[in-house]
């Protein structure tokens, strides 16, 4: 009897050390180095079961991959992800009133939990959120009386008998159709969407405001946070990310460019301008530098699956916060501390503005985030071990175990180490996703999507 999931990998789920070994599984996307701008991946998200994996790109397209049913005989490999559906979610638009082009780039995708045969997801660009229904069609009616099979109308005078059309099987077709369009509610650029645990409402956040929507209602939304100052010259911080609590439907958090996170309770008042909790860590004075202010900006915030913790990502680190403790994070992990002395160069080449995301594994024991040179990092919260891996086509034989990488910050470079100066800052991993139940991860480089799995013996 073969076990479907190795319990060891499932519950230990460690990111480093001997507990888990990550193997290359698949890579999707063009091979050539010349990257078409429209192909740049801008978001990656597994659905609630992990069977579907959605990516959005700068060209406004959404590509959904579906995991094959596992081969029950060969238990050493999990199902592969193959293209399930591709559709154009957003098109470029022009705001004539403001003389502004609105980019079609997909900023975020969020899946709704499955309620029936169809799948639903929300996708958003800078201004408009859309609810898409993805449904399968594997039968079609045949035997109409007035139409030929190809659709041409039959001459009624040639009809001599009547028949009842019947459904016959056909090749599977996956259709995506926009069911709702939530537009005209954001003056600034949307950075986050988050579906509430009531599965009826969701929030969308831009630089200064957060709106609450009902999934069925498109012509209005409630504004629940507004941090726009009366005089814009007094603006000192913007909203950078927002998320609903996974269990409490009245609670959400939003992060700011100043490195703070505010937790709000919608029961307290209609406009949640006054936070219930403010999470902020005092700045370490020894780390104070010219660019301190901008590297403390939080680029992503994610609740743990349990809802007890939340994780934030700023330019150099990942922090885990206990919702019960506001004055400092309970854990801090340095992603690429060797960049602290390079901030000026990173400002010059704009890399200092990169917005990295982060994610939890299914059991909340390991967190993952991206870095430069196509490196990504995992931190095991229990063993306190961390590992750096690289997404590269060089290791592209399935089940090749990934070799841990190491960056040499200063001093003598050991064999196999990479010096900071040879890092390729054009190769950045901003978006990563972890399967909700298994040790399968999706890592997006500029225009390729890598899928890695743990080695199942």
């Amino acid at each position, binding site marked *: 009897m073969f076990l479907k999931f190795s319990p060891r990998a499932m519950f230990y789920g460690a990111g480093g050390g001997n507990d888990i070994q990550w193997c290359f599984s698949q890579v999707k996307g063009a091979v050539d180095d010349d990257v078409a701008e429209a192909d740049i991946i801008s978001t990656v998200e597994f659905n609630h079961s992990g069977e579907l994996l959605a990516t959005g790109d700068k060209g406004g397209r959404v590509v959904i991959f579906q995991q094959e049913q596992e081969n029950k005989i060969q238990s050493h490999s999990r199902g592969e992800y193959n293209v399930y559906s591709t559709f154009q979610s957003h098109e*470029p638009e022009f705001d004539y*009133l*403001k*003389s*502004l*082009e*609105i*980019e079609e*780039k997909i900023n975020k995708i969020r899946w709704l939990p499955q309620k029936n045969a169809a799948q639903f997801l929300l996708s958003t660009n*800078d201004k408009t959120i859309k609810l898409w229904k993805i449904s399968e069609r594997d039968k079609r009616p045949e035997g109409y009386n007035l139409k030929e099979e190809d659709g041409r109308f039959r001459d009624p005078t040639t009809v001599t008998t009547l028949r009842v059309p019947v459904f016959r099987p056909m090749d599977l077709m996956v259709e995506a159709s926009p069911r709702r369009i939530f537009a005209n509610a954001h*003056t*600034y*650029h949307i950075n986050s969407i988050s579906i509430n645990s009531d599965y009826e409402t969701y929030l969308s956040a831009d*630089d*200064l405001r957060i709106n609450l929507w009902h999934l069925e209602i498109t012509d209005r939304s409630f504004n629940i946070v507004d941090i726009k100052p009366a*005089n*814009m*010259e*007094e*603006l*000192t*911080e*913007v909203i*950078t990310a927002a998320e609903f609590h996974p269990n409490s439907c009245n609670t959400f958090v939003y992060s700011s*460019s100043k490195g703070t996170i505010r937790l709000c309770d919608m029961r307290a008042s209609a406009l949640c301008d006054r936070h219930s909790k403010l999470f902020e860590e005092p700045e370490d*004075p*020894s*780390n*104070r*530098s*010219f*660019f*301190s*202010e*901008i590297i403390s*900006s939080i680029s992503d915030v994610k609740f743990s699956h349990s809802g007890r913790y939340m994780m934030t990502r700023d330019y150099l680190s990942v922090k885990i916060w206990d919702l019960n403790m506001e004055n400092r994070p309970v854990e801090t992990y340095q992603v690429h501390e060797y960049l*602290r*002395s*390079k*901030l*000026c*160069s990173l*400002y*010059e080449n*704009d890399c200092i*503005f990169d917005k990295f995301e982060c994610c939890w594994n299914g059991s909340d024991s390991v967190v993952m985030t991206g870095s430069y040179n196509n490196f990504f990092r995992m931190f095991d919260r229990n063993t306190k071990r961390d590992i750096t891996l690289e997404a590269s086509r060089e290791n592209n034989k399935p089940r090749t175990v990934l070799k841990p990488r190491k960056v040499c910050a200063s001093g003598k470079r050991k064999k196999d180490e990479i010096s900071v100066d040879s890092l390729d800052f054009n190769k950045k991993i901003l978006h990563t996703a972890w399967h909700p139940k298994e040790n399968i991860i999706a890592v997006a480089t500029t225009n390729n999507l890598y899928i890695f799995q743990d080695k199942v013996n």
Partner: protein
Amino acid sequence: MEVQKEAQRIMTLSVWKMYHSRMQRGGLRLHRSLQLSLVMRSARELYLSAKVEAHEQTEVPSLPARSPDPRLHPLREAQAAAEAASPDGEQPCSEPMDTQEAPRAEETPARCTPHPAKVSRKRRSSSLSDGGDAGLVPSKKARLEEEAEEGASSEVPDRLQPPPAQAEGAFPNLARVLQRRFSGLLNCSPAASPTVSPPACEGKPACRPADNMLNVLVRAVVAF
């Protein structure tokens, strides 16, 4: 002085980035603009403090001036080290500037003043030529705007070769422009901005509600 030059360079770079971000698809992004303005403000503060330091040092060589900004303390240490003529080129990572820069400790205060603006003007051009903004240097733009406001009209190239006496004054124009423009950010008493007239239609890049701050920032960099 190195610190002044570096601050100038960063200010100019930021101004250029702000201008360039207008050209992006999707228009000005509020978060990016805010971050750039934060860096500009820090650079300006650094520049002005360093300038004050330089003046004080020529008068009182022994005592470095006190500064309220803790950010400048590492700099003061660097300057103290320079004065003590320590040969150490390796700065601690609390050094605000990129530690890859040439060791600051080797610079002596005596070398700081003569033609910093002229040297920095050269540096500025070279750093901007990478950006592809051919010809037009933001400092030129800022100065042109100054002159436009003062009602003067003169040729751009002439202004690029000011005599050394004026060179010192040329850069402070940019600083003054930025100071006036960002007075709101600095929480000074709000500078009257009657000079910021309602923008012309075609020059307007930002969301109308996103407004005054962005207009102000944008106008600082767009001369025409």
